[in-house]
Structure formats: C-alpha cells, structure tokens
C-alpha cells in the first residue's frame, strides 16, 4: 500500500499549503507562454505540458536581480544590500529534468562563495516533482544518465496513476516529509497501479563524448567550425537552459545613485568575453559554441563531478536554426577515432 493524492483534492491541497505559509507555483500558460507561475487553484495549472517553455531556474536565479542600492554623495557612499524575499514556496509539478537542474547548479553557487540569493530561495522552496508519462522528440534525459522518473533535486516524487485520477506520493527528502505532513489528511492509502514511463531513447553516448572533449587535441578540431556554422549567436539556448548560470554585474543609475544588478549573461554573446582592450579571445561563434559544450561536459564535470546538462532538450526545441546539444553530442559520439 502506498499513499496517493487525488486530483480532486488538489484545491484543498493548495489551500492547506497556503495556510501553512507557502505560495504555490506550478506550470501555467499565461500570455502565450508556458512557465512556472503562482497558482490559486488546480484549474490554473497546465498539466498537459511535456515541459514548460521556461525553466524553474527563473525562480531561483532570476534574469535580473537587484543586489545593492547605492548613493554617492560628496564625502560618503551609502549602500544597502538587497536580499531576496524569504517567502516559502512549493513548486508543484516540476519535471525531473528541471529539478535535476537545480541540484546540478547547487555546487556551483556554493563553491568558493555561498550565493545567498540562490540558497535562500533553495532553502525556502520545496520541489514536488511529477514523473513524466510523455516525452517529445527533443527529450534526452536518458542520454545524460537521468530518467523520466529521476528523483534528483526533488523533495517529493509524484507518480501519475494509470487511471489518471491522481498521483502516488513519496517523500524523498526531509523537507518533502515535512511538506506531506501539512496535507496528510488529504492523502489516502491505495494500491492503484501507476502509469508507465515514456520511452526516451538514448541519443548519444555521453561517455564517448566526455572522452573526446577531454582530449586536448579536440579543442582545435575543425569539428567546431563545421557544427557551429549556422549558429546565429543568440542566447535562447543558454537562457532556457535549466543549468546555465552565467551572469554579469551591472550598475544601473546615474553618477550619484543606482542599483547594482545581477543579470543573466550568455557565452553565445560576443560581448561575453570581450576585453576592455577590444581583444576578444572567443571572437567567432564556433569558439563560443565549443565553450558551451566544453563547459557542460568537460570543465563542469572536472570541477563538480557532474555534467551541466539535465537533458530537458530545450536548447534544440527552441533553437531558431535547429541546433542544440543533442545534435552536437550525437556528432561527437560518432566521430571517427
């Protein structure tokens, strides 16, 4: 016997969490875009999405974030540190790839310096993952050794019931156990079977890819020039990626006062590595695309022991010229050696 949550209890569930001080976020379709947004009732949620267009990363590492407010006067500088809101949040209906993305980025944000902006939000958030029952042509979690029912990054794991009436519920962290306690009267014992997982074919051999990338000879390979020829150099793949985490610090204001902000930045942009002198060490799109792949499947793994990709496939799904990690890694794993 396991515990289940019925769909028709979801409104009560949201109310219970709100009563316990949480705001509830779930996949929503708003203004012709799907993303995670705050919901008040079950009917606000878009359950039919394989994956929202935007990642939950947006709610932990927003595209622009104020850090410091400052004022410069003749003899002194006043500054005020701006901290992220400490609102407790439940993220309901996160896909395993997006939840994994958070776990993949944790070591990065806590490495030489503990990024409060990230960790405060992480500590105040409970991730309720819903296991996938559908995949599309771009899903590739299995290729990066995750799966449609991976519990990585999750606090609670929900498995859809075969009859569609609800989900089998399992806490996979202490935070998850605590969250389930707030709704325990709404859960019931049941042994309904769960829906089968979708078949997500392995699209490349990530071990082979990693081996090739680690070979110093690969850095100058003609391969990069050929594969990146059609890359137009926009930032959509990086900004829609659940693990891309690069940012820029900008002061916004006038000479005397302003706000220092942390803004998303992208290795796809020429400005990303532009030196003050005008020299740009990555002065072509192929060197930028190489950096993105190397960072995800070579450097990041070298530093944190994990690849910086959770296989969501958004990079390809949304690319205006149909590029993406899948094609590049497929090409690498079939290179003659």
């Amino acid at each position, binding site marked *: 016997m396991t515990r289940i949550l019925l769909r028709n209890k979801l409104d009560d569930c949201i109310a219970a969490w709100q009563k316990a001080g949480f705001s509830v976020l779930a996949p929503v379709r708003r203004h012709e875009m799907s993303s995670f947004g705050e919901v008040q009732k079950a009917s606000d949620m878009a359950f039919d999405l394989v994956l929202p267009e935007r990642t939950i990363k947006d709610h932990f590492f927003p595209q622009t974030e104020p850090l410091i407010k400052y004022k410069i006067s003749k003899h002194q500088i006043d500054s005020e540190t701006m901290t992220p809101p400490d609102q407790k949040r439940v993220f309901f209906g996160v896909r395993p790839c997006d939840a994994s993305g958070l776990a993949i980025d944790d070591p990065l944000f806590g490495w030489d310096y503990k990024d409060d902006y990230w960790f405060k939000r992480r500590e105040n958030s409970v991730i309720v993952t819903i296991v996938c029952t559908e995949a599309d042509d771009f899903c590739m979690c299995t290729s990066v050794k995750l799966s449609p029912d991976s519990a990585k990054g999750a606090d609670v794991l929900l498995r859809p019931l075969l009859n569609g009436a609800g989900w089998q519920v399992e806490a996979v962290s202490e935070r998850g156990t605590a969250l389930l306690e707030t709704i325990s009267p709404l859960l019931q014992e049941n042994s309904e079977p769960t829906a089968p997982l979708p078949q997500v074919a392995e699209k490349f051999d990530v071990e082979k890819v990693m081996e090739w990338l680690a070979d110093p000879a690969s850095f100058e390979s003609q391969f990069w020039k050929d594969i990146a020829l059609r890359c137009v150099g*926009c930032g959509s793949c990086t900004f829609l990626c659940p693990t891309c985490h690069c940012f820029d610090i900008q002061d916004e204001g006038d000479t005397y006062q302003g706000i220092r902000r942390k803004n998303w930045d992208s290795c796809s*942009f020429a400005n990303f590595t532009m030196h*003050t002198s005008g020299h740009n060490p990555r002065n072509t799109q192929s060197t930028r695309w190489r950096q993105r792949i190397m960072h995800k499947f070579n450097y990041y793994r070298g530093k944190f022991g994990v690849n910086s990709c959770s296989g969501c496939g958004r990079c390809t799904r949304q690319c205006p*010229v149909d590029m993406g990690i899948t094609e590049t890694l497929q090409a690498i794993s079939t290179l003659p050696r």
Partner: protein
Amino acid sequence: MGIQEQYRSEAAALLSSGEVKLVIGFGAGSTADRRRPLFARTPDEAQKFVLDAACIANLSTYLVTEGLLSDGKKVAVFLKPDGIRSINILISEAQLKPEQVVILGYAIENGKEITPLEGRNISDFSIGEQIRSLTPPPHILQEAERIEEMSATERFEFWKEHFAKCIKCYACRQVCPMCYCRRCIVDVNQPQWVSTSSHTLGNFEWNLVRAFHLAGRCAACGACDRACPVNIPLRLVNYRMGKEVIDAFDYCAGENSNQKPVLASFKQDDPETFIL
C-alpha cells in the same frame, strides 16, 4: 525533375564550376517537420539540400555574416520572395554587392506547393508590386486590427504583458538580416547606453529600439517572430511600423535595390506634419 533535385544539381554545378564558393540552403532537421540551414562548399554536400514547403526561414541573414563576402567571391542562397526583398534592402543600404549574390529563388503557395522562381541575379526579380500588395497572414492582420482598436491604455497593457516576458536573448536580432550592425547599440558598453537588465522597463527599451531601427526596413519575413522563445508577437510591431512608413512616405522597403533608404533620404514633398 522536382525543384529539390533541380536546385541540388544547380547548386552542385555552381560549386564545381567555381562560380560560387558557397551555397546556403536547407537540410533535414532534427525532426521530420524541421529544416535547418545547410552550407555546401562541395558538389557532394549540395546533394544534401532539401527544398520543400517546410523551408520557411529567411537565409539572407547569413549573407551579412562578418567577413563572408569580403573576398569578393560569390555565394548562392535559397530565397523566398521575402528573402529577395531582404536582399534589395541590404543592397540599398550598401551592405551587399548585387554581383556577389546568386539567388536560387522559390515560392511557397498556400503553405504547400513549392515552385521555382526564374532569374538568378537580384536584377532579374521584379517583386515591387507583389510586395506592395502583400498583407500579413489573416490571423496576424486580425490581431493587428484588434490592437488598433484598443485604447492607448489597453494597448500599453497588451505590450507590457508581452515585453515583460522578454529575456533579452536577442534571437530576434540575430536571425534578422537587417540587424547587421557589428555592434548593436545595446552591446555598446563604454558607457552602457542601454541597460542590459531584463526587467519590464529594460525590455521595453530593447524592443522599442529595435522597432524604431526597423521602421521602413523590415522585409516582413517573420523570422523574429518565429525565433522568439517566449512568443512575443514581434511581427505585429514591425507590420505596424511598416504601415506607418508607407502611409507617411509612400515607401515600401525592398521593392527594388535602387531605393534610397527612407529614413536616410528626403523628398521635397515629404510630409512635415511632425514638425511643429
């Protein structure tokens, strides 16, 4: 012989004779309904070209890639009428030399039938009338009219909701053949004239800067709209700006390559209604 085979062999012939150094066309994409830009440098590579009704991207954007045409050699490119229109605009803005571009033209009728266009040089195409009478697809037109009927406040709210979604990935700019500036104003950072922040105000700044810069220059190919990962209806913006320019100056961008850019030239009888 179908158009795909015809253009494959023509591309191969252009490459083997050395007339062009590169052919830019379409290849198979990552799914059955996707096509992706394909670059052929050898006759063999030209055999991979795909040409069907799914080939809707405007490939002219690659012609303004830094350094591509600086050796004076020719490049052939697969273009629909909107791509040919882009070439006219680029020539009139002195960004392309007409003799460097070989056009493998095609048209898609009713979203299904694909037919080759005659002519290989830009001067072979007279698309002026066709462009004048060009209206956006019905659903776009309908939406444009709906916005027109809104009050100023409603209209502002409409665009605020859309621009609030913008993430400043600049996909709209990167796929646009008219966005050829080596350094876009938003990338000029000494000083940073336009904020890089992607808050609603910053997003307004970016989208308005682009709208102004495209007024009277847009080829209406819809590439920006298709590229936008957060589904901002960008072609509505550019359609409206284009209409404004037609009404004010009787100027429709890209009718031919002899046009003088509307905002970089003047006529004695230009309206002066905006001058107080």
